[in-house]
């Protein structure tokens, strides 16, 4: 789940974390374009997935 340029509100964070068990992660200290976050997340997951499978 990624937010827009305004990020997520505190209420949204709480909803996601407490009601849906979301894990809060960061990709770094700079705010990235949402679509770039998706690419980076997919890349990390693909890499880890390949390690687990391999």
């Amino acid at each position, binding site marked *: *789940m990624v937010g*827009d340029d305004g990020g997520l509100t505190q209420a949204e964070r709480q*909803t996601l974390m407490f009601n849906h*068990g979301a*894990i809060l992660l960061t990709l770094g200290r700079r*705010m990235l374009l949402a679509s770039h976050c998706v690419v980076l997340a997919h890349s990390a997951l693909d890499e*880890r997935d390949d390690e687990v499978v391999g």
Partner: protein
Amino acid sequence: MCHHVTPHARAGLFSPANLLQGRVDVWCRCVTAGLYLSDAIRTNSTVHLVLQSDDLASCRLVSVDGATVEGLAPAERTVALLLQRAMQHASLDELPTLAREAPGRRRKEKASSVDDDDDDANNEGKSMRNAERRRRGWLAGQPGSRGPVPGIAVSDHHSLERALAWAMRGCGAVTLLDMEGDDAETVLGRVSFFLFPYGQLE
């Protein structure tokens, strides 16, 4: 998750030639980034666009399923056209009204659009039946009238909570990318994290 999405954009009333307006380009890029590999589509992934209104009173969920979506191409414009058709189809009833109130509407467009048909009918004595016929004609020319897009589901919810519950049904794990979170690399390194099917991560 997008905030302050106008009713017009939510109904697919945006121009594929100007995707910066309403930042529709970001929606399209997210769909492309979430579903595309170099020469294939991630069939185990679904991209959900959570579009919230200004007053947070309603929430539209647009879900693009990599396994079933048809007609998708990496070009932003292609994605925008598919999203537009799907979103318009879900709002066909209110489309003419929204189009009439669309911001930044030019006078040139007025003449050819359905929007002023009611006025025309009053001013020029045209019948309401005529106006209704034109309204239907205008609507028939909109992309949304061509039917839903296979693989793109659009649903409206009264709250964000309901939209999220709908989007995340069946999900094993949810990660929220936020600058205040833990380092992704560290957390993603936990093998236990992958006990969940990551294709369902949103």
